[in-house]
């Protein structure tokens, strides 16, 4: 069988990078290990450039099992960007708290690869394996804080709960396979379009929703998120919040919008209800939190609810809205978490009250957190506003109640974000010495902040690109 491997050059490069980092970790002297972070990040930038350069180089590999279209290309851009920012943001943290740079960066690269596979997978088997590659890598990364019972406990919880969710997901996939007789998503779509509704399909859908709902932390499958987010090393938390979530959305879109388009009326309302409940619970429970990572976990749950809104209509506009929101979501989340992890590096605390007076100690960190949080709250002119606008515009016609819930709850979210902002800007610091922000962290912070502002003020070009990418998704 002849195959055109040129379209999967980025994936091949990722494998090589992961292995290379591992080997370098073995042969380099111990004191130059911290440089691996720079090496990884610049290599990732190179791979990102490869993806962007191959933007129009689309096609399929291995008999349609692996699909490279602009939709998957765009998601790969999301994952790689997130990975690059996370690596930049985590260098200081890794060197100080973790060690094991080679393992850390190479597993991070592999988990990113898992996400890329998920974005391109066109059949249940590849999808599931990509998901597992990502999940297993994350389990290792979550446990990476040695000696720390919190981290190990988080890892243990994640391994068991992710196991349950994987089993459920696999069960759902096998039921769908049982009905359709094929694992190819496109073919499943064609078969289900003419199929009558079956109870078994219902169970299959339920299992898929549960399995993927777990990964995106949608209520009621969200219980793991606060604990794991809190226990994991902070850079990993941010990667978990962005990468894992968006990759799962990629296959959620692939399976549901493409594979079950024919029965979209059956699951549309379900998605709407899940989105509504997730938005409500996530935002309300975030209010009384005192730990910033738990706060961000609940906020992340709420964000998952917002993104789910784009699924409801199973339309091009919805897919586009998800992609747009996903893209800006990276910068907001990574911005906040980079600041959090850097601050933890200095003070060893994740409690919100310890952020008192951050604006005086490091205006940059405080400003980045404010901009990122306002983006997540959807306040103009930051990018989140445009993103939410796209998302909710897709549902105002048929599910107005959902849009209203979303709007009310974004207001509520302002309330708890504001409490963090107040602590940073209004309270007096206990130690008022200025914080010197290291170069990679500074770069990450400034970059994320700029993107949040620029995309909010001028979203046009990105929106055009995503329009085309979302269109390519429906072209099969």
């Amino acid at each position: 069988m002849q195959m055109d491997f040129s379209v999967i050059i980025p994936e091949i490069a990722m494998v090589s990078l992961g292995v290379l980092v591992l080997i370098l970790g073995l042969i380099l002297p111990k004191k130059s290990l911290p440089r691996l972070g720079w090496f990884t990040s610049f290599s990732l930038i190179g791979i990102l450039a490869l993806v962007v350069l191959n933007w129009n180089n689309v096609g399929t590999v291995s008999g349609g099992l692996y699909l490279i279209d602009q939709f998957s290309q765009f998601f790969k851009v999301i994952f790689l960007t997130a990975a690059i920012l996370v690596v930049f943001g985590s260098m200081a943290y890794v060197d100080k708290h973790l060690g094991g740079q080679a393992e850390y960066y190479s597993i991070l690269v592999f988990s990113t690869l898992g996400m890329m596979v998920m974005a391109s997978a066109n059949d249940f088997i590849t999808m599931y394996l990509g998901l597992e590659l990502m999940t297993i890598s994350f389990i290792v990364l979550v446990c990476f804080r040695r000696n720390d019972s919190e981290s190990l406990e988080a890892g243990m919880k994640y391994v068991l709960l992710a196991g349950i969710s994987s089993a459920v997901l696999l069960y759902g996939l096998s039921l769908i396979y049982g009905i359709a007789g094929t694992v190819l998503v496109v073919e499943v779509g064609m078969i289900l379009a003419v199929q009558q509704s079956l109870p078994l399909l219902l169970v299959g859908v339920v299992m898929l929703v549960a399995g993927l709902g777990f990964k995106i932390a949608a209520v009621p499958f969200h219980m793991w998120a606060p604990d794991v987010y809190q226990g994991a090393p902070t850079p990993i938390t941010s990667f978990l919040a962005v990468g894992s979530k968006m990759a799962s959305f990629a296959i959620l879109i692939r399976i549901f919008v493409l594979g079950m388009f024919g029965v979209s009326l059956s699951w549309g309302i379900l998605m709407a209800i899940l989105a509504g409940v997730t938005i409500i619970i996530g935002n309300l429970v975030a209010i009384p939190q005192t730990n910033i990572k738990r706060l961000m976990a609940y906020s992340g749950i709420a964000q998952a609810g917002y993104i789910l809104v784009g699924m409801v209509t199973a339309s091009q506009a919805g897919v586009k809205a998800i992609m747009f929101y996903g893209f800006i979501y990276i910068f907001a989340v990574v911005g906040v978490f980079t600041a959090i992890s850097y601050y933890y590096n200095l003070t060893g605390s994740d409690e919100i009250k310890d952020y008192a007076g951050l604006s005086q100690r490091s205006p940059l960190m405080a400003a980045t957190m404010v901009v990122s949080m306002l983006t997540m709250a959807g306040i103009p002119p930051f990018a989140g506003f445009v993103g939410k606008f796209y998302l909710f515009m897709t549902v105002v016609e048929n599910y107005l109640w959902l849009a209203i819930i979303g709007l009310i709850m974004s207001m509520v979210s302002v309330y708890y974000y504001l409490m963090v902002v107040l602590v940073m800007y209004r309270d007096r610091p206990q130690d008022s010495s200025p914080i010197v922000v290291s170069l990679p962290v500074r770069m990450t912070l400034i970059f994320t902040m700029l993107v949040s502002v620029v995309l909010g003020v001028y979203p046009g070009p990105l929106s055009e690109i995503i329009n085309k990418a979302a269109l390519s998704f429906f072209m099969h």
Partner: protein
Amino acid sequence: MLPMFDGIDWLGVFFYILSAVIVVSALLVVFSKNIVHSVLWLVISFIAVAGIFITLNADFLALIQVMVYAGAICIMVVLGIMLIKRDDMNKTNMFNSQLYFGGAVALMVTFLTGFASYKINYSGNPPMVPENSVESIATLLLSKYVIPFEVVALLLTVTLVGAIYIAREVKADADS
């Protein structure tokens, strides 16, 4: 394919016997108070699953099932148990306080899936199983399914590296 003797569907008989074994042994895995007993029931359950694979002519899968699950995995579990000291082996596999509630939920989920599966007519003809399944699986793995295959390889690498890393750190702590 097993032939049908005397009008009895032997395939069906085997299926129900094996299924009963699987269900009972799986329940015993959960309900045994001694965790070593649980592992033994687990082995039986795995072997019975391998039996079902054989009735479906998936002999390669059956082989893997016996070797990997019944063999390697269960031995790993036993080793793990061995390394963790317990005074009273009869209290190693305890229930938490949610027996009834958890049981109820499990029953309901079982009912849901069971009912849904019962309601469907499998009318389509499954494709013929090739004579030499090992060979065709090998061909498929390295041609059509090469990408998933490679992903599995990476998955194992990551698992290995991760396990070694986490375990090594724990050992370093114990030494210091």
